């Protein structure tokens, strides 16, 4: 009877990749929001 291969490392790698890419995108959104708000604030203060 064929045994199930141990591919756990690839599964973990796959989910790390998903969470990493999503996190990078969310952080990029957050940083761009912060920069735009800072610009608006700075221009309002001038």
């Amino acid at each position, binding site marked *: 009877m064929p045994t199930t*291969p141990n*591919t*756990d490392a690839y599964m973990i790698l*796959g989910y790390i990749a*998903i969470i990493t*890419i999503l996190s990078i995108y969310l952080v990029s959104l957050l940083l*761009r929001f912060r920069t*735009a708000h800072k*610009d608006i604030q700075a*221009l309002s203060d001038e």
Partner: protein
Amino acid sequence: MSVIGHATQPQQEQGASHITLLTNPQYRNVLLKFWSIAAVFSFAISLYFALVYAGTDTTMGNVQRVFYMHVSAFAGAAVAFFVTVVAGIVYLRTRNRKWDTLGLAGVEVGLMLSVITLVTGSIWARPTWNTWWTWDPRLTSAAIMALTYAAYMMLRNGIEMPERQRTFSAVYGILAFSTVIFTFMITRMRGDTIHPNVIGSSPVNAKGTFEMVDNMRVAFSVNMWAWCAFIAPVLIWWRVRLQNVSITAEKRRADFLNDNN
């Protein structure tokens, strides 16, 4: 008797209240907040279904669990790119800038989800096909799709005249969707691809096919819902918000420069 043609007074009032709900910024903020929370929950639930509920595939082992998010991320990308098509069509008809913003948001979110699809596909392929990448028709078309949308971002930024930039983006966004259809259809048209199909029968040469049992079907459906109905739309909405804030900042900067000249 016309059912649609003439709305009665209460119906008109009811319709007007729905429009007020959608146009009122306060209600929109609440809706976005709830939708964002729902997206986080749906992602957590989809993880549970993929990693626990689905069960292990006996042929491929646990790497098969990557497939739930791999396919769903592609579906989410397709939804985002379709939003760009709709936004492009409406922009060309109305010339209203908000549709251009929506189109841009669709491309950016779709591109990010396409990268997830390509990366997870590559990770799944290593133990299943014994290679990280092969120039298989499906893989090649998926790569072309991602590159086409990456080119959208670069070309858009290269056009300086705002009106021309928006028109170009709308037309490009509509035409670029052909790569999404092509990527979906390629495994149904070419018998020599080794990429399996989830929906419908797989090609003859497909490697890594598997029969989905009931648990797997449920896990797959939950993941599809999470990525298409919550994660992709919420990210698009936030990206639209970001663009609106950036436009406000640009306007303030332009006003500031004008005042000082």
